[in-house]
């Protein structure tokens, strides 16, 4: 790292602490853009190999070549945080990015979802993911690429289907309770059993207790398959659990994106504003970059059909700080995720100031702005984020012959699953489950539909 930048980084950190940021130490590293591109695709610097990442990577390459995307930084929460800056950024950009990273570090240290996820998935996700990748490479050596790929096809297809309400090292379902012993005979029970005019009670059934697995519909498909799959080998279970562990890390990142990016943008703007040690020219250039990052539309457009999370988050945080003070804002930062953040703090007034609107896209491609109230706007923003962005598919039953019965909760999703894709996913799962796999959902008319593999 150039000495100049190193010096600024030290002073920016000091200023951040002074302004009340709390975080685990941050390791900064300068990396080439190609590295950033891979991080953007894989989500982690070293991650398990899978051909589907290759497809995303080529998209990213094409987009990058066409100049549509630029990645400034990426930071992985943990202790220490690992922050990567692009080595061909200007020093202005990297000053801004440093302050931005501190905002992220503060967020991940304090936000309860992040705190919980780190306590669960560990403080070294970068190294852990690299270790998973290494273990999978070993599995390839032993079992061969085809078999490992089949496991990853299934596990990564179910990547979003976890349940963070249970701990990451989740115990098995509790064994069914034994029926209570009949109470010892005494005077009362004797008289109770022989009430005048009533039949004597039948003796309780004493056969084996009916156990149903799962005891309740199970959302954590990765865990369930790893734990209850009738014919998985150990290394296959291991891969499922590795994917699950990474999902535990990704989930809060996904659920807090607007808040987190907004928070970091708020802090880079504030830190740079208060950093009197930066030359004024550097500050100006950095603020130019800032306004590029948090602007709502592309350069030549007046209307965007998606909301820039940096822009939206930044503006909500400015408003929250103005209304509740910085301590109030910090409390909000700790306790909310995007769902609560949008519902509670994106007011009608702010939505109007920001020109937010709701549109309807029809199948034929027509996009029309609709009359909408605040609630509809909130739902349009956070709708795609429910349930980690995936349809709710639950394990319904594990039959005695090993058949896995999945059920899609179409009521809460509002409509059924797309049958061709669902069928393919079932085929992935079936290869690993090695017993019949059944999925119930509804078709376009709302009639129950049963897919089998």
């Amino acid at each position, binding site marked *: 790292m150039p000495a100049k930048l190193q010096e600024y980084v030290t002073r920016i950190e000091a200023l951040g602490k002074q302004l009340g940021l709390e975080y685990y130490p941050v*390791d900064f590293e300068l990396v080439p853009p190609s590295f950033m591109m*891979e991080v953007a695709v894989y989500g982690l610097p070293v991650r398990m190999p899978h051909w589907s990442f290759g497809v995303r990577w*080529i998209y990213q390459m094409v987009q990058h070549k066409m100049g549509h995307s630029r990645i400034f930084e990426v930071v992985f929460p943990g202790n220490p945080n690992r922050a990567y800056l692009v080595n061909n950024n200007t020093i202005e950009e990297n000053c801004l990015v440093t302050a931005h990273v501190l905002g992220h570090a503060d967020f991940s240290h304090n936000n309860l979802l992040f705190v919980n996820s780190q306590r669960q998935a560990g403080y070294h996700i970068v190294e852990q993911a690299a270790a998973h990748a290494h273990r999978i490479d070993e599995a390839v050596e032993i079992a061969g690429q085809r078999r490992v790929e089949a496991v990853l096809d299934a596990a990564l297809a179910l990547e979003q289907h976890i349940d963070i309400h249970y701990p990451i090292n989740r115990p098995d379902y509790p064994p069914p309770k034994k029926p209570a012993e009949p109470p010892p005979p005494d005077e009362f029970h004797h008289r109770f059993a022989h009430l005048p005019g009533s039949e004597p009670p039948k003796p309780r059934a004493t056969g084996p207790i009916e156990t149903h697995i799962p005891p309740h519909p199970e959302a954590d498909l990765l865990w369930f398959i790893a734990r209850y799959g009738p014919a998985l080998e150990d290394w296959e279970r291991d891969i499922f659990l590795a994917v699950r562990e990474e999902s535990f890390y990704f989930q809060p990142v996904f659920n807090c994106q607007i808040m987190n990016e907004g928070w970091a943008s708020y802090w880079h703007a504030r830190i740079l504003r208060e950093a009197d040690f930066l030359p004024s020219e550097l500050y100006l250039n950095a603020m130019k970059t800032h306004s590029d990052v948090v602007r709502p539309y592309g350069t030549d457009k007046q209307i965007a059909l998606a909301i820039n999370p940096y822009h939206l988050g930044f503006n909500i945080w400015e408003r929250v700080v103005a209304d509740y003070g910085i301590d109030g804002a910090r409390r909000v930062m700790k306790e909310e995720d995007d769902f609560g953040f949008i519902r509670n703090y994106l007011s009608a007034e702010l939505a109007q100031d920001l020109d937010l609107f709701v549109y309807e896209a029809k199948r034929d491609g027509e*996009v029309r702005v609709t009359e909408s109230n605040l609630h509809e706007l909130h739902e349009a923003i956070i709708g795609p984020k429910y349930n980690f962005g995936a349809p709710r598919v639950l394990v319904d039953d594990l039959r005695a012959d090993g058949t896995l019965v999945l059920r899609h909760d179409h009521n809460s999703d509002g409509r059924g699953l797309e049958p061709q894709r669902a069928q393919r996913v079932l085929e992935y799962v079936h290869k690993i489950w090695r017993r019949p796999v059944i999925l119930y959902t509804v078709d376009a008319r709302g009639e129950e539909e049963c897919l089998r593999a």
Partner: protein
Amino acid sequence: MSLSDTLAGEHGNRWYDLFSRGTRDWLRHNEKIREAVNKALPDLIAHSDVLSRPEDRTVQVPVRFMEHYRFRLLNPQQQKGAGQGKVQPGDVLRPGQGRGEGAQGSGGNEEGGVSFVMEFKVDDILDWLWEELQLPNLKPREGSQVEIEDYIREGWDKKGARSRLDRRRTIKQAVKRRAVQGESAVPITNDDLRFRQLVKRQQPTTNAVVFFLLDVSSSMDDHCRKLAKTFFFWALQGIRRQFVRVETVFIAHTIEAWEFQEEEFFKVHGEGGTQSSSALQKAIEIASERYDPSRYNSYLFYASDGDNFMEDRHRARAALEALAPRMNFLGYAEVSGRHHQRLNTEVGVLFRRLQEQGAPCGSYAISNEADIWPAIKAFFTQQAEEAA
């Protein structure tokens, strides 16, 4: 201070420069596509226009990115989203496009919808095909005088031209000698040198000539030509696999016959009737002028819709019978848009007669793309049997 300090030396060579995970996974994706394409290959090639650029010896096949499937909700009739900008309720931001193209509008990042062109080497395709269709390899005609003298490598000597130094043998000799002589031995001496030697031997010739005869009379429409062209192409590729040097002769005919260059050959359109004998005569002329049967393996393919003038029957038959002994194999492809062919046409009957007389020949009816592969397969299998 960070990963790079612990994992890399001072001068670059950082750990992440050593490999690109993105490239690795992208290549794996392409490999999977190749496997998938491989399975559907005969279909794909029959339909793609492989012959438009025969000099490249590659085939371009459009393929889609593979999609890693996940559970997804049914496409709703209307999808709501949030946007930003100065608009009024009721504004139409993007007009509908009528029917179809639906998914494009709602999700621009539809990965499944993007396709790209993959290039396959014709040689690779042939290898796959030979494996897939379990085709036998062609053999040069045996028992004939199709032999030439050639130098081949045989044995080693201590003297020879430098270019024929066999390094492996030389080192082996040196190792053996040093093992005997012990510590003080010189690494390599002149005595260790081994040179490959050449001797003259009779070799079956590896030259081949392929005659392509095409009926271009007005009854041969574009569909027929395309079938003929595809059949010719793959037959030729198969022959190329076996022989070092393959020469080609292209003859088109109506009631007259002309020789053409490859590029023009398939563009020729003729008028009027059909006399097969003209082309067969032409082939005889060219064969006797340029291709000495003792030096060339000769193949002949004739594509026609089967019509021939009645009065030409005897001449055609005579010409075929004259031609047959010169050829390793004669193939007749009857192309037409009609189904239910039984090779009962004029030309079909001619070739059947010839086959009954024990000449090495075969007939194939091709009325659509799907018939091409069975025809190719039949040709190579039959040819191998004849040669054996």
